[in-house]
């Protein structure tokens, strides 16, 4: 039987989207690099940004890959690949696909959705996440000039404003993790402790490598400990 979900056509669409994202990323990378050079930014600093970002990205990417594999049961491999390569997130794609399937009385739990439901899911997953990019095209430039104006008028407050936004973002996830049960709390604390350890190694022993890779090391270490905690506590 013809499997439309994993057909050559679907994988061709996936390849086009992946190629587009790759070219766009390379263009932005090159533009930023050249601008950095023009501004006199140390090339070593920019290289370190590339290496540390690549290493950091590996673990969250595995989580994204896991979502792709989870969705592949019902939707095949190509559509989840496409969706997870562009705007959206692991937390968005699954509920969007499920909402679309439910609207037809179907479910993602099915081994493979029928073609009409598949098409509907593709439309809903795509249209449901368009508000951010559309808002950016329409208003981002104005928004950015307002932020810049605040910084010109009062630079110290402008810097504090951005720091407060950072802290606000982090606080919401800290709150969520702290209320997420004992394994979640222990994982959070382990991650923070490994970060402290990495910083100490960098500052006291001069091991610069621990500064560059402190975040991925903390993440992987805490995730490994989460397995241990769940095994002991049954979480």
């Amino acid at each position, binding site marked *: 039987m013809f499997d439309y979900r994993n057909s050559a*056509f679907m994988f061709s*669409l*996936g390849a086009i989207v992946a190629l*587009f994202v790759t070219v766009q*990323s*390379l*263009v*932005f*990378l090159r533009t930023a*690099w050249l601008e*950095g050079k023009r501004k006199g930014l140390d090339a070593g600093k*920019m290289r*370190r*940004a590339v290496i*540390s970002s*690549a290493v950091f990205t590996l673990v969250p*990417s*595995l989580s994204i890959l*896991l979502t792709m*594999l*989870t969705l592949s049961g019902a939707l095949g491999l190509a559509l989840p*690949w496409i969706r997870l390569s*562009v705007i959206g997130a692991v937390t968005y794609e699954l509920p*969007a696909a499920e*909402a*679309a*399937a439910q609207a037809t009385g179907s479910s993602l739990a099915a081994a493979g959705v029928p*073609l009409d439901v*598949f098409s*509907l899911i*593709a*439309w*809903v997953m795509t249209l449901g*996440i*368009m508000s*951010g990019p559309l*808002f950016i095209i329409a208003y981002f430039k104005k928004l950015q000039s307002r*932020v810049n104006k605040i910084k010109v008028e009062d630079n110290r407050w402008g*810097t*504090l404003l*951005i*720091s*407060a936004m*950072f802290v*606000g973002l982090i*606080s*919401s*996830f800290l709150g*969520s993790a702290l209320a997420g049960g004992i*394994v*979640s*709390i222990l994982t*959070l604390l382990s*991650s*923070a402790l490994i*970060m402290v350890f990495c910083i100490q190694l960098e500052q006291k022993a001069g091991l610069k490598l621990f500064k560059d890779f*402190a975040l991925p090391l903390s*993440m992987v270490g805490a*995730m490994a400990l*989460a397995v241990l905690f769940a095994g002991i506590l049954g979480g």
Partner: protein
Amino acid sequence: MTKINENSLSYEVAIHRMGRIWMSMALLVIMAVPLAISVYFNVWPAAGPLLGGLLPIMMIYVPIGIIEVITFSPMLGSGATYLAFTTGNLTNLKVPCALNAMEIADVEPGSSQGEIISTIAVATSSLVTNLVLVIGVLLFVQLTPLLAAPLLKPAFENILPALFGALGYLYISKNWKLAVVPVTLMVIIFVLVPAAPVGILIPVSALSAIAAARLMYKKNMI
């Protein structure tokens, strides 16, 4: 000095122009996927189920999409914002990645150097995720049992606490006064409503942090 400002301004103008063009092209490419599926297989969604599927999703994700732009763009800078909002996975990947790169490079978010490092970080991150997904597609059969192993389930379930524990220490140890109000507020909310959606609470937390920061700034406490 004037020349530098002029150059910064021209970069700012150029990056917005480039960003808008690429984002418009990205939207066309993204929209072309369901359109191509419908045309190729000759299966068009009926209006009823389409609205039925879209409405509950849009009710949540339209405000979140807009709020994410307002909250994340000042941190990311212009170039990184255009790219991150095309390639997605902002809170769990692109924003922490940019934060981490700026921290390592010792540059301020929102500064002209921060703009460069943030864009480099987001572009690199997008390329790596892309590569990982392509490898996942090619090695699907071999990778599925490995990644979906029950032993690893708690690890992937706790990826956000594992990320934000370290990131939290890094930023809150530097700005602990800014963190008192939002952390307390978020813990209270999540203890009272454990299933509260983080996406909606991010702006609440950010606004409380900004209000507290403004108050402390006015009273010369920070």
